[in-house]
């Protein structure tokens, strides 16, 4: 019977139906390409204009130059602002990662009274508009007669970074198999050794991710910084202030460099992670 059928011609799917199906299958992919284009237009623009031979105001394309990349500190204040941002970013990352990781372990690994209140306290800073947070901290500093500047900015950054660190690390802790720790204890590791040899290495990628997130949040923050930094200039503040009279192309250089640097770190991190898992 089947032999007879094989001699018949193969029925083909009509072309119209094929085209319709192809569009149906790929419409959302086509859409995604547009969405990503939208996301990257300003990034591409910023990158392109980092090569603009613009002089003072980087508004109109005046010609291609590598000068801005060769001399990123060429514009007054840019590198000073960048240096401040990096210093603040590192300090805020360091402290918020330590404090946040401790809280994440407390909430993620222990049952205790006040746990839901603790969760609320972590959620609140994320639900507070930046401007309210910035303004309230400033008013506290004013009452305490502390002048806005470097350290107040660091403190402000730690405040808003902690919650994000807690959330990120907690997610990692929650995904851990508790039996791994039990197995370690079963194999004669005491609490401290278990933490150091098993728990910490397993949570480490989460902590690294949290630190990266904290740094990028701190580095990019403008609103809270603007309230608490006084006369100190950070990179975003520098851009905001010079926006009125035109931003020097060196700012585009730094923005683009940060973009590629961060992208490299994330992609390398993912590759390392994937290799470890295998």
């Amino acid at each position: 019977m089947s032999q007879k059928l094989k001699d018949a011609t193969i029925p083909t799917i009509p072309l119209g139906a094929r085209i319709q199906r192809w569009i149906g299958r790929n419409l959302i992919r086509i859409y995604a390409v547009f969405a990503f284009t939208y996301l990257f237009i300003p990034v591409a623009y910023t990158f392109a204009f980092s090569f603009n031979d613009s002089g003072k105001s980087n508004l109109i394309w005046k010609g291609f130059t590598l000068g801005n990349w060769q001399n990123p500190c060429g514009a007054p204040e840019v590198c000073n602002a960048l240096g401040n941002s990096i210093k603040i970013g590192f300090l805020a990352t360091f402290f918020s990662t330590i404090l946040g990781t401790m809280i994440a372990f407390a909430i993620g690994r222990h049952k205790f009274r006040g746990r839901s209140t603790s969760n609320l306290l972590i959620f609140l800073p994320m639900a507070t508009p930046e401007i309210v947070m910035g303004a309230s901290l400033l008013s506290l500093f004013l009452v305490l007669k502390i002048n806005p500047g470097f350290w107040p900015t660091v403190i402000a950054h730690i405040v808003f970074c902690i919650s994000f660190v807690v959330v990120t690390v907690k997610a990692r802790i929650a995904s851990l198999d508790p039996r791994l720790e039990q197995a370690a204890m079963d194999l004669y590791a005491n609490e401290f050794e278990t933490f150091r040899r098993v728990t910490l290495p397993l949570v480490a990628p989460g902590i690294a991710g949290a630190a990266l997130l904290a740094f990028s949040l701190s580095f990019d923050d403008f609103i809270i910084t603007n309230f608490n930094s006084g006369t100190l200039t950070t990179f975003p503040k520098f851009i905001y202030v010079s926006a009125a009279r035109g931003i020097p192309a060196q700012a585009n250089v730094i923005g683009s460099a940060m973009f590629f640097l961060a992208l490299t770190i994330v992609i390398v991190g993912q590759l390392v992670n994937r290799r470890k898992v295998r």
Partner: protein
Amino acid sequence: MGKIRTPYLLLLPGFGFLFTFFILPIINLAQTSTQTRVSGGDTGQYEQTLRFTNYLDAFVENKEQFGRSFLYAIIATVLALAIAYPLAYAIAFKAGKYKNLLLVLVVAPFFTSFLLRTIAWKQILGEEGFVVPTLRSLGIISESTTLTSTSFAVVMGMTYNFLPFMTLPLFASIDRIDPRTLEASGDLYANGLTTFRRVTLPLSMPGVVAGTLLTFIPAAGDYVNAAILGNPNTKMLGNVIESRYFKIVDYPTAAALSFTLMAAILILVTLYIRKAGTEELV
């Protein structure tokens, strides 16, 4: 004994810090909001008089900016949801092995300072950019129409800047949906639209709620987009608070406005969560 104390010891430094630099400032802000100017004192000198009408004055004086803040934030949130949902869906279900790479790409624009990107939009949409002349020559907009310094530009900027906040939680939610349930829906006589309405959307509600909150809250308090992409008639509450602090040095009004903003956001968010919560999220 030590076991019981461990979590508290771990919490102590972080929560001590948060209490000092987050809770205390908010309390302090509340105090400031009812102060009045010391008569005959210097600029910036205030005393506590428990004047609650500060709130009323601040609100009445700025109700336009108030309304604008929430209107812009809501429009930007809805737009971001509309743009991000299909994107998150595509990454979750259609990206295959490129899923992680595409997720990185969603976050990647963040790494270029958001101010630089906002200013880039200003220049792209500005008179010297390529968009306006193109649209004009195509006759889509008239010669006198501009795109920058408009409420359109402000809302577009906000939508753009908060898009990743919307996309990531949406992705997390959609990615957890078993694709077989979507097939099962089709198998049970639901067409694409019905499947979306009856299965995909309800199952992704946690992501929708998280995404809209993460977009709406910062959008309502934002003033950078309005400052860069707007004009004096697109000022939002954030712009008012900023200028009260730095230009007018009117701390009580600024504090009262901040508090009103926070309260309004909290009320809206609570209502919203309660409404979304009735759908019984899984």
